[in-house]
């Protein structure tokens, strides 16, 4: 059966269990299943910046889930290739429950992939946003108008909402892009929520790169 354990599968189970425990600095025996694939997955996850590793004494390592790990988990769960093939214990199922509740609580109606970009500065933000807009403009034939909600969801939680808005305004002031409104009478509320409200004014729904 070991052949069915893909890296995706292994990483997801590790992330789920750690997420279910909801504590920092957890010993691997509490959340990493036995087997070489899982050991490798643990190393990889640390490398991807999903988990942080701290030494406890000289030999023992303990692990904490980082925001990036949570993004990765959500992304993995929405990956069609992931499926479970045996009965799993409460850690996995409780982890799933927790994911479900958090999503439902935070973001009704908008379970998305994404949330995986480490953006810490205006520089990062501008190159990411511009690159992403260029990409989906072509892929999805948007004819130059990129819905802001799609960008916000792609950027995910690595940039909080206020900062996201401010940085977009800054990009606009720098003539890198312009934001545009539209008639939004038929637009779903969650898309409007993830657009940009200009102070004292109306919603901006699109980005157009300049």
């Amino acid at each position, binding site marked *: 059966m070991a052949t069915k354990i893909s890296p995706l599968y292994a990483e997801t189970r590790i992330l789920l269990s750690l997420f279910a425990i909801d504590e920092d600095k957890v010993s691997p025996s509490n959340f990493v299943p036995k087997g070489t694939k899982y050991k490798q997955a643990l190393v990889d996850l640390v490398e991807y910046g999903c988990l942080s590793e701290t030494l406890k004494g000289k030999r023992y390592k303990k692990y904490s889930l980082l925001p990036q790990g949570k993004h990765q988990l959500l992304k993995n769960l929405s990956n069609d290739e992931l499926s479970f093939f045996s009965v799993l214990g409460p850690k996995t199922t409780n982890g799933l429950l927790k994911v479900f509740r958090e999503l439902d609580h935070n973001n009704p109606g908008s379970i998305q992939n994404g949330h995986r970009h480490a953006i810490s500065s205006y520089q990062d933000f501008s190159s990411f946003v511009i690159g992403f807009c260029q990409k989906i403009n072509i892929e999805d*034939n948007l*004819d130059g*108008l990129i819905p802001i909600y799609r960008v916000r969801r792609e950027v995910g939680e690595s940039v909080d909402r206020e900062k996201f808005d401010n940085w977009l305004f800054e990009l*606009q002031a720098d003539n890198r892009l*312009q*934001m545009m409104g*539209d008639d939004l009478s038929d637009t779903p509320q969650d898309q409007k929520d993830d657009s940009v409200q*200009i102070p004292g004014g109306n919603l901006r729904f699109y980005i157009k790169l300049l």
Partner: protein
Amino acid sequence: MSQQASITEINELLQDTNPFDKGLVVKDQNIWGTSFPDIPELNKHVSDAIYASMNKLQESPSSLDKVSSMVIRAQRGAGKTHLISRVRKQIKTEGNAVLIYAGADKYSELELIASSFRESVADSLEREGLQGLTQWQEIAAQLVITALKKNKNNAKVPSAQALAQKFDQAYSKSHKNGRDLVTELAKVVRHLHPDSDLYIIRAIIWTLSEERGALAVKWLAGEELNAEDALDLRLSANDGQDADVREAKALNFIAKVLSLIGEYRTVLICFDELDTVKENSLGYTVFQVVIDLVKRLFDSIVQSDSSQGVLIATFLLPKEWQFLIQDGPDSSTSPKSRISTQSERLDLRPLNSETMVQLVSLWMRDFYKRRKIVFENYLYPFTADELSSYGKQGYTVREALQWCAQQLPLKLKNIDPPPESLTDKERFEVAYKKALARDLDEDDVDSNTFISSVLRFSFERIIILLKKGKLKNELIENVRLESVENVVPRSKNNGYINFKVCGQEDNVPVVIGVEVLQQKNGLSVGAGFRRLLDYETFDMTRGCLVRSLERKIKRNWDSHEYYQQLIQKGGEWVHLKKEELKPLIALKNVYDNHEKYNISINKLDLFAFTRDSLVKYPLIKEILSRPEGRVVEEALEGKAVERLHSEQEIQSIAENLNETLESLDSEEDTDKEADFAELEVA
């Protein structure tokens, strides 16, 4: 006379009149007028793209590249009117193009969209072009001048203006000699442009005539002419009675007109206001109907290799464009490929720090200029820093003006509170006098909406006073007022009749339709009259036209006839006098700003002065009084159209109208020179 204003005076002025209240809604008149302020930097990329496309059309050697279309995406309030008005001014100065503006919000009957567009074409071209001529006359002059040159190599051609001035004289001279100048000119033009329609050529040439030009424009707009009038001009009948037939022919007609105009001028057609909420009987929206029209129009325009080209610019909301590109594959027959032949999409930009400051400065400069006040700080009470940091957020023009309109009173609030020590009555008097002293600006006198809002306010106030039992004499001019009502069906009225005043006159119900009609162009005035005469549709017992006396009705307009009909139907023309309007405006101003002056509406209603100004007011009394039933000759000007031909002649023209055309088609291209001496420079 200019006067340097003190800061106290400015504060007072701004407290009473918020310059930013105006301009939140821009209208047609802003496109055609010359006074609308423009920020050249704002959306320069779009106006430049329009000029570039027009140049390209002019320079292209092939008829295949002579028709082009572009989409300009814009959110509401983004400054479309600013942009179109700028392009219009540029076209007017350069004189090598004409503008046709088609605002779909005016199209009340979507089943007749092509006919409505035909009206837009005629109406737009009736607007002023170069040197005081209309755009129609400019084109007509071009046709005639070319004809003169073609006819005789060394012809001394007059200027366009001179041509218009001497046209009627020249025509009657030729007529006395048994010739028809227009026919002869049209023949030469027809030889130059063999595919063009002879009637269209004739009608365009006729627009040069002071006397008959209005009839020709009416014919070009697709309206039915009186049969003798049409024959006098040797024009075909317009199928006016049958709207469906007219509709079926309208697009083809427009295409022919555009082909001919295109030989002399680049035609820019702007389609705007497609997001109007209306549906036709099949449930298609304005947007869908207009897009279909643009597509059919694009397909029907034919231009020659030497033409100056036709550019169609369609303004759309982003989602409307999105809708078009999602609508099936990009085939060569899809609407999308016709509405935008250009690959790049243009979008209007929001304001930025600099343009925000410019907007406010321009707006205030204009405001002071109108009032002939010298005050150098155009940003006051705002500061440049504040405006540029606000402008950074990227507001639309309308949002920015709204913000200014909101902020201005807040900023002035602490500067000059109204004196507390005065009694209500004294405060009222101060406020009223101040409002009364204000000069009315030309835009206000031009604005039917503004004037009718003042009149409506007055009638509504009187009715409230009546209901409160505050009026001793309940009858004004024998009428007991009961209500003020909106005019329905709106789609038929198209905004012409402003409201209806209902009441009892000697115990008989009376419903007076009040229509302020300050327009100066014959087509609009005629359209306004037709609504006012339609007592049945709008359920009225009397039509009341409110219009300045000096805005005379020309005797050669159809409105001359309509005016007489109005009198016969028991209606009247109440002459609007600027000075008479002022007290009502002042009173309305005090009511509108009662919070600022700290007087309750109830108190205002109690003042004897209020009652007297409303009830004894000449304009109000005149609207309510029984009409005198006579046509006021001073309100008319010009000569009535006199028959060119006797009844017998008309008869024979009618019989031969088609024949003449046919013989012309078969006629050999003779080199015989016609004699146009009466048109040439002496």
